[in-house]
């Protein structure tokens, strides 16, 4: 259950599923799974069952928020907005998976070059966290629906969280908790926003909201 490499590979696979998923429901489920994996990873990184109580608190907190609360919000927004699929993303799903492969290669290369403050126990931890980060950024850039944007944002944050685990003492737990709180507020607001936008405009396509930009005069 606390085998770090297994968890990391799970995380990696989830990222690929996210890249190839066209159903919004799948995306939400996968991001929930990623949250759960990360929470286990937190414990695994800090000696499994014997982890200190603060780590337990963080793991449980982030697990509950990311695997239960966020998916609940997102599913609710999905139901209200009545959308099921990501239509016509800027980058197709197959191409996205290929980009993911390239991103994985880039992460492995980057991780070998990145100067880190201390030794890392699991060699896969840094590449996988970088990969998660890149996937999150890619989802943000390449998808149209507001809901997939939120998913991309969550994946990005998961990457940051995962990277934080690689630096044993440099990222204090209080910082992680602070970030978690930020994300919580952000997703909460985004969930409400998506609901209101869809009620107001009958859609949640971000590319159709470009008329607010500063026009040439």
């Amino acid at each position: 259950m606390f085998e770090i490499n297994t968890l990391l590979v799970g995380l990696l696979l989830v990222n690929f599923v996210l890249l190839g998923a066209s159903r919004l429901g799948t995306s939400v489920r996968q991001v929930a799974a990623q949250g759960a994996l990360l929470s286990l990873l937190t414990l695994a990184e800090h000696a499994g069952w014997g982890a200190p109580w603060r780590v337990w608190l963080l793991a449980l907190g982030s697990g509950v928020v990311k695997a239960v609360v966020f998916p609940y919000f997102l599913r609710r927004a999905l139901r209200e907005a009545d959308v099921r699929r990501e239509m016509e993303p800027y980058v197709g799903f197959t191409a996205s998976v290929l980009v993911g492969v390239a991103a994985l290669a880039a992460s492995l290369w980057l991780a070998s070059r990145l100067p880190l403050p201390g030794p890392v126990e699991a060699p896969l931890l840094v590449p996988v966290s970088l990969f998660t980060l890149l996937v999150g950024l890619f989802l943000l850039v390449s998808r149209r629906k507001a809901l997939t944007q939120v998913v991309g944002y969550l994946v990005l944050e998961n990457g940051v969280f995962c990277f934080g685990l690689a630096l044993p003492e440099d990222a204090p737990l209080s910082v992680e908790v602070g970030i978690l709180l930020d994300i919580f507020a952000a997703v909460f607001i985004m969930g409400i926003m998506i609901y209101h936008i869809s009620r107001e405009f009958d859609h949640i396509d971000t590319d159709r909201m470009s008329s607010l930009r500063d026009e040439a005069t």
Partner: protein
Amino acid sequence: MTAFLAALGLIMAGGVASLLAGRWRSRAAVGGIVAGSLCGLVAAVRVLIGGPTPAMRLPWRVPYGSFSLAIDPVSALFLLALFVLAPLAAVYGGRYLEEEHGGEPLGGVWFFTSLLIAGIALVFTARNAVLFLVAWEVMSVAAYFLVTFEHRRDEVREAGWTYLVATHLGTAFLIAMFLLMGRAGGSLEFDEMQLGHASPAVAGLLFVLAVVGFGTKAGLVPFHVWLPEAHPAAPSHISALMSGVMIKTGIYGLLRVLLLLPSPPAWWGWLLVAMGVVSGVGGVLFALAQHDLKRLLAYHSVENIGIITLGLGVGLLGVHAGLPLVALAGFAGALLHVLNHALFKGLLFLGAGAVAHATGTRDLDQLGGLGKRMPWTGGTFLIGAAAISGLPPLNGFVSEFLIYTGAFAAALTGRGALLVAAVAAAAGLALIGGLALACFTKAFGAVFLGEPRSPRAGRAGEVAAALRLPMAALAAACAAIGLAAPWVLAGMARTLAQVAQAFGLPSPDAQIETLRGALAWVSLGALALLAAVALAVLARRLLLRGRTVTAAPTWGCGYSAPSPRMQYTASSFAQPLVDLFQPVLRTEATATLPSGAFPGHASFASATPDPAERRLYRPLFAGVAALFGRLRWVQQGRIQLYLLYLVATLLILLLWKVR
């Protein structure tokens, strides 16, 4: 230093208290400013009369920054101008704002007034480039919020934008200048900079950056365009503060940099003399063509900054030519004119505010006949007008006399280029003085003499004592400096000694004695003039005793039913001069001429837009806007694209770093 810090503390405490004080807002702020200014005066005067130079330095966490302050005699002279004008403007403003805008929230305007005063005081005393720039920005931004006080009016917001853009462009040059200074001098502490051996190219570049950056704040032509917009937009006591002291921070900065730089080459003096003459003549010419009283005064600020710069230029030429008397007279005239301009321009702006308050308009052609209705305002305005025109026995004459002395001394030693510059300076100063006199004859005549040109001007009455007293105090100060000129120069001895030492001149005691001797004659002449006027008044009384004196309407001229429209208007009075300088001014007139034996409707209107704004900045900014317009394709309005920009930038930076 304790007194100075107490001054800053009291001023800011008053400003903050004003935000919370509700009905007592104005009293809290005025109290803080008056008490603080008194403390500040103590600190400044103590240095001027020969006390030690207070200094302090506290560490500051900002990189290269330190909280280092010092009041040397140069700072003290500028602080004197600030702490004399600030409390008077505050007392005036307390009453003025409550009467004019009583129902509106005023805590903010008082807070920013306090911040402006404290910011200017810090600018005058900061001895670290970072601290200086911070104080500079605090001052500039506080002034922005004061300019836009009446932000509901479109033209006020427009003026605010113009000011904000101008001041930030100026600051950009200053940041470049200080960075370069720090690089060349090895430190950002003014006291530790070693610029004495900077190469001529570096020193020249620093000088040009200083002239552009500080010139923008001071309002030198062609960087003056914000000034005639921003000064009229602000409430009058703020205009007085801005014109009287804030624009002097530009002069102070220029002087401070000159004191740090190596010995000046001749072209620095030439440049300052040329800019001074252009600013002076240009400022007064455009003032002549204005119809708005405060706009007219704002252009006169450009003119007076020109005179001060001219004085600095003469001083630099003297330093270069190794003529201590020329240098001393030039610097003394410029520095004294800083103080004098604060006094009489403060007075004139307060007077303009009183006129606007009493009549509801600043349009010269709507006013008239206020001298009889507002004798205090009229009398003090007349003193200010005579002072700014450089007439004896007032203070404006003294400082201009010193600059003339420098120019003449340079002309008499006459060596080629120096002779040309000296003659240009003296002739320019004479032209400026003459035109200023014409302009203030027009302004004073149109506002205070003759008959009211509008019903509201006819109903105007004298303003409250709280508005009259500051004006009277400033008028008294103008007269005092004029009558006590030799002692005033003695009071500046330490400042001049510091300047002389920084430029490597010998101790200036001998030159100060020479100049004091000349000024003694000026003051004696002034006293003789006053005595002659008193005698004339007395003689008039005696001659008229026992006779009946009747008063007839001004411009009555024997008509049975004279109308105010028969008077000269302000525009018609200025017309001959405006026509003479038409190639420069390019006044645009639109007229419907009367025709036929029984002419019907006729009208005339003229406007003089600023050519620097029209022909220089508007095309320039339009070009910049067009250039940036080409980058508009970057703005697609899609969030994904913006994120892509971010991601790409971050990735490129990351890859570049780990490469």
